[in-house]
């Protein structure tokens, strides 16, 4: 069809998640535990089209219908209605054989975007999408070492349904010497998951008892300027990005932060990225990469007091605190080999300093009570400048890709 670009198809994904095992070392008193895995099949058919309505207006859209089946082999518990899921509210259990469907979900994904070329130098884009997600990651900001785990949607965790709106303005300046863009977005998610207060992150056989289902929202904007030509090239971008969750249940156990919105584990409002390349000579170039972002949120011990002669350590609200801001500056020097046209291979040396300023960026944070006060510590990896030298080569000459 003229001015149309149709795409359609079918796909199918089999998910298999193995949460692992808990194996004590040497003569520890901990009991060895192996956890049941998860399995699911997601199949979908999709149809998309890009249509140039006029030379200035182009629209793109797509539909994707997905069918998701959560599969055995698995033991699934039934719980009392309208009660928090816990060992005390179990009423029954069912053992599903391998590949037997335990629970099915389906949904229609929609995407739509429109681009309007105001002229050769300006354009506007707007977009909308509605999608269903059947696998998600459970993260936390409290453990010293990573305990993130993938989780499939099951009888207790419904698919995450997201709706996103975005609008962007793009402009070329000075005959494409500079690109400038500005975008804003807003997204709402239903059925997002987070851990309950007091949840067990590591030895959790029945994770449905320790996670809650709620809502999320993400919004922000991005500004970028890019220089394409000259001895100095690169780009600078700043983006403001908020990511929040809200869990308001029928009981205190099913509610976080009194049911108010709070920063999610990924909430980093301010972000700056600068990439610069300077090439004064053909064979020598210098690159710099600067990254800054607001420290991510965490839950930490903040209050110490005594009640009836019992010392109490109390904590902030979920994710109320933030680790120190992240920033890092990397520098590299690239020296190319000779510029002969006829050669079998072209080599170049790269000398890099990663984290030039030796910034101690936090990898994780934990708190301890010592000498009657709360001490907060961060674990930092790459807390010193790291030098590296590499020798590289490619087939062809200086100009070959």
């Amino acid at each position, binding site marked *: 069809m003229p001015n149309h670009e149709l795409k359609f198809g079918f796909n199918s994904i089999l998910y298999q998640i193995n949460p692992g095992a808990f194996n004590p070392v040497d003569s520890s008193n901990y009991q060895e535990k192996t956890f049941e895995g998860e399995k699911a099949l997601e199949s979908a058919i999709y149809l998309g089209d890009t249509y140039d309505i006029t030379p200035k207006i182009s629209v793109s859209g797509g539909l994707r219908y997905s069918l998701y089946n959560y599969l055995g082999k698995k033991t699934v518990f039934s719980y009392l209605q309208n009660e928090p899921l816990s060992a*005390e509210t179990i009423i029954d259990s069912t053992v599903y054989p391998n590949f037997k469907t335990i629970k099915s979900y389906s949904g229609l994904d929609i995407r739509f975007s429109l681009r309007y070329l105001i002229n050769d130098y300006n354009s506007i884009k707007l977009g909308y999408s509605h999608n269903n997600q059947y696998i998600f990651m459970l993260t*936390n900001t*409290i*453990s*010293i*070492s990573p*305990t993130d785990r993938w989780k499939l949607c099951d009888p207790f965790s419904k698919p995450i349904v997201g709706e996103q709106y975005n609008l962007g303005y793009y402009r070329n300046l000075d005959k494409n010497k500079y690109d400038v863009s500005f975008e804003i977005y807003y997204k709402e998610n239903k059925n997002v998951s987070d*851990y*309950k*207060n*007091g*949840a*067990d*992150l*590591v*030895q959790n056989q029945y994770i449905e008892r320790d996670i809650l289902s709620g809502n999320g929202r993400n919004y922000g904007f991005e500004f970028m300027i890019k220089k394409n030509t000259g001895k100095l090239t690169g780009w600078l971008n700043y983006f403001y990005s908020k990511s929040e969750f809200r869990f308001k249940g029928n009981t205190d156990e099913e509610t976080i932060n009194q049911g108010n919105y709070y920063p999610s584990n990924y909430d980093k409002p301010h972000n700056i990225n600068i990439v610069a390349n300077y090439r004064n000579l053909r064979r020598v170039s210098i690159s710099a990469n600067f990254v800054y972002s607001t420290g991510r949120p965490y*839950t*930490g*011990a*903040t*209050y*110490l*007091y*005594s*009640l*009836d*002669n*019992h*010392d*109490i*350590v*109390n*904590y*902030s*609200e*979920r994710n*109320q*605190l*933030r*680790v*120190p801001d992240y920033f890092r500056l990397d520098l590299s020097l690239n020296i190319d080999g000779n510029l002969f046209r006829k050669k079998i291979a072209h080599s170049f040396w790269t000398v890099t300093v990663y984290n030039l300023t030796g910034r*101690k960026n936090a*990898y994780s944070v*934990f708190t301890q009570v010592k000498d*009657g*006060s*709360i*001490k*907060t*510590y*961060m*674990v*930092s*990896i*790459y*807390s*010193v400048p*790291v030098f590296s030298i590499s020798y590289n080569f490619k087939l062809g000459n200086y100009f070959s890709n």
Partner: protein
Amino acid sequence: MNVYCINMRRIIKLTVIIVSIILIFQSCIYEFTPKTGDLGNLLVIYGIITNENGPHEITILKTKRINSKVNEPVKGANVSIFDDKGNTVPLTEDSVGKYHTPETFAGQIGAKYKLNIELQEGKKYESDFVELLDVPDISELEAEKIIKPATGTSPGSSGYQFYVSTKLGNSEQIYYKWDVFEEWEYRLPYKISAYWDGTVLAQIDPLIPYQCYMHNQFNDIYISNTKNFQTNYITHYPLNFTPGSSKFQYMYGIYVRQYALSEFSYNYWYSAMENNQPDPLYSKIPYQLIGNIKCISNPNETVFGIFEASAVKSKGITAYLTELEDPIFPCGYTIALSGVRPQDLMNQFPGWVGEYGPQLILVHEKECVFCKYNGGGTGIRPDYFEENGLKNGK
């Protein structure tokens, strides 16, 4: 190239790789001060009403510095307790931040009580109504001499492990809390019978006690429940372990006060225990502990602490270890006396006169004479320090 050179090259290459990996992936742990700008100085309120005669105490503090145990008592508040029959009990501030009921006030089993506070600046706080639950008697306290094995953080030691068992409770008595106090006897070296003021030797009657008793409450939170039990009593629940020390030299005992908690209170103390003792992997999500007291003037204000009500039953048990008997060493600067007559004491500075074994002495230092100046003890022997104490364990 010979084999030696090849091996050396491999060793050097491996060393460079390992050192590089160590340098690249080195991680360090640093202390830092988190930004706590959004955290305010919050009110901490605690009080418990029992069926014993007062005074019952309500404490009101304000957290002063984030991350520190330094908290500021709140003075000048208007504090009262209401019951579900419309009666009001006003409390008086006997010391800064501590508010007491009259001595004649005792809570009634089955009645419900609510705490009401108004601060000087006009803010009002209120607790939920809490029912004063009855509690069964303590059936038995046990003291077992054991050798506690060494752990990663502490050496092994021998001492006494104490246990508590309750009598059968009714269907409402499911959740329990115990406050455990330790008391022990220590002795001053001299049996003082007189005081020389430089001119007059005055007999002291009654004698200044040389047997002193220290009193200390354990900070640990001891709670349990019979929720999944077929019969409603607790047996052999472990309380504190006291390692062998000079505390056991003469007499050592623990005194246990047993309370019945509501489910809310039990969950509160259970959460406090979890927050206080994060496991080594920090593998549980910690959370802010909120009690049953709210700010009526500003519902968004966070208030810490809890108001409780319970009947109390108590019991004590003693134990001592003969192998820890030590000789009593002299104290202070003493002067041996040949007799106890004013003429024997002429030209001596004021002091206390007493016996040190067969010897008569004069001693000047208060801490060698009075319990309260020597370790802060008292001369009051606990009631349960009878001859039912266990000698050298079971």
